[in-house]
């Protein structure tokens, strides 16, 4: 099978003066074309470092990183920039759209940094529009990011990541800022891309989300701890069904709680869902630390 990306004994050390932090202590991974991988791990496990290296945003201390048949581990900044532009599509937790640009302009952005900086051709523009329609934003191409919901912004980011037909798509906590229904939307989009043969590598700490992937790689202390192959993958259908169940359960729980409570307490069912999303947020912030 052809490899989209391959890392061989990858090490990354951070020299912080008195101490040297070994963030990655020798990781070897193969990502065949059409792979869908979720990288899991607690904070400090090295998964962010790995993602930065895979994304060509950083260079390893030692080891090799072969992307699309090319060793990119020792490239200089300019070459790496081209690699990022041509071979990697980024999707971030906080979308990272340029706020003063419209949806279409954001999608166009990677085209401006193509090697040789060719002018945008009518074909390019058409492709951008097709991409916007593909992610369901055909009617909102002139909107600016602040006029869009989180899910819509993330869809713009996905369209942008697809523009230069990358070897791999890197998603860093792509659903981290989204509610569960919108997360399903985004994951469905990624799943569809994967079904078309795209290689997707995503970092997440949510087991639900990781279940969408073909396999999970769990990192711990800078090494690969274990690999789990998802025998039963989450599909859009199963996710939606589970979502409905959960909503039903939530609803039932809310009703039961309401009935049990004395009349003085707040009877807003939103409290329950608020508690759920609040938990999610605290989870995120702990991950950031």
């Amino acid at each position, binding site marked *: 099978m052809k490899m989209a990306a391959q890392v061989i004994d990858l090490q990354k050390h951070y020299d912080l003066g008195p101490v040297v932090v070994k963030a990655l202590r020798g990781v070897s991974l193969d990502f065949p074309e059409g792979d869908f991988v979720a990288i899991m791990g607690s904070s400090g496990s090295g998964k962010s470092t790995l993602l930065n290296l895979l994304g060509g945003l950083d260079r390893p201390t030692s080891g090799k990183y072969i992307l699309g048949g090319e060793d990119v581990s020792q490239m200089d900044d300019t070459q790496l920039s081209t690699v990022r532009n041509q071979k990697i599509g980024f999707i971030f937790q906080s979308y990272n759209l340029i706020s003063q640009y419209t949806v279409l302009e954001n999608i166009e952005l*990677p085209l401006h940094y193509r090697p040789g900086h060719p002018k945008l051709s009518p074909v390019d523009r058409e492709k951008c529009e097709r991409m916007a329609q593909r992610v369901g934003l055909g009617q909102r191409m002139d909107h600016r990011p602040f006029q869009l919901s989180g899910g819509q912004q993330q869809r713009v980011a996905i369209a942008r990541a697809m523009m230069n037909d990358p070897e791999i798509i890197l998603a860093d906590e792509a659903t981290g800022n989204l509610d569960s229904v919108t997360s399903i939307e985004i994951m469905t989009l990624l799943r569809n891309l994967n079904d078309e043969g795209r290689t997707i590598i995503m970092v997440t700490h949510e087991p639900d989300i990781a279940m969408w992937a073909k396999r999970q790689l769990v990192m711990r202390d800078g090494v690969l701890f274990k690999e789990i192959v998802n025998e039963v993958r989450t599909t859009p259908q199963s996710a939606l069904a589970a979502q409905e169940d959960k909503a039903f359960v939530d609803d039932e729980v809310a009703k039961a709680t309401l009935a049990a409570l004395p009349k003085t307490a707040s009877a807003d069912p939103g409290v329950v869902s608020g508690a759920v999303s609040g938990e999610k947020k605290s989870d995120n912030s702990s991950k950031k630390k």
Partner: protein
Amino acid sequence: MFSRVIRTIQLGLKSLLLHKLRSGLTMLGIVFGVFSVIAMLAIGEGASKQAQKQIVALGARNIIVRSVKPVEGSSNDQSGGGTPRYGLLRSDLRRLQKTIPEVVSAIPIRELNREARYRKFTMQSRLVGCTPEYQELNQLRLSKGRFISDTDRASRANVVVLAYEVASKLFPIEDPLEDRAIQVGDIYYSVIGVTEPRNASAAIGGSLSGQEFNKDLYIPIETFRARIGDQVYTPKQGGMDSEHVELNQITLEVRDVQDVIRTSEVVRGTLEKFHPQKDFAVVVPLELLKQAEQLRQIFNVVLGSIAAISLVVGGIGIMNIMLATVTERTREIGIRRALGARRRDIIEQFLTETVVLSGTGGMLGIVLGLLTPFAFRMIRSFALNFVLDPKTLSDTSKMFQEMQPEVAPWSLPLAFGISVGIGILFGLYPAQAAAKLDPIEALRHE
């Protein structure tokens, strides 16, 4: 390549337009810097043109020798306490005419301040004894009648040509040429001509005071000598002031411009032998012209430097804002880097923004600069009408009244080039700071 430049500029314009107020305020520094460069140079140019015009009016081929009253006390040895005797002599005139071959003509003048009277009208004026050549020498035009002639000189005729202001003061209604005679001192002169108004010449250097032609009375120099004489008495507080002067001024015309400076040295040398008390001064308009040229250059350098300082201040303002912008847009830089922008692309982007900023500022500054002459005229008329008292105007402010700022065409591209250069110079550091950012750090930036 070209389309890429255009696109980068479009990009720059776009992000500048996003912060209109900030961009506008940043631009102001450059706008005023460029404006002041152009305005200062225009005013400098106007002032020097004005000075040059006046010097040229004196004649580049002329050498002017004037009598100078020696400092009190130093002339005692000659006149022995009576009437002080000083200045150029008629013998000097003949000597200069005959001994210096380069001198084409020598025109003597005798002048005296006297009151002119016609019936009840009087006016303080300057009685000038001169020759027919005086008219051409000072570019006097006549509105009525004729100037004095050689016949008038030969016959020592009591004829006078009135300058414009004198004529209108003494003859507010009547025609001065209708067989009228005016009285100066106790002598009557019949009017033969009236001049057109003529602008006064400014004082140049210390030795040549400004001439106000409009208050003159011109009579033949021979008449002056016959009727008034060399020794004149002027009433003053507590008695009479007397002095003995033969000629007040001799204007020598030299054949060739190249000989002017050398001839002036010869003239000085010749006169010094007969005037040990240094009661004369030699003024060379050509020399003044050269001095004025040097002065103009100094003027331009000084004014230009002041303007350049304001441009630098504007540039520092740009640098300041761009550095703040880089910090504010760290995340955007990170996004662009992640999407494949090279360091060079980031430098180009920020540099373009500063150049567009300073270039636009430069354009606005040029537009403002082109309005300088109008603005100057408005300020001047305001100053003359409300601030300055016309009666107390000195020679300098008269110059201010008459000068016209002239926008030097070469100052426009210069000012624009400097403003763009400042944009590049002061944009380089923020742009490099932006490009140096680590993409990972930049993406993490809130």
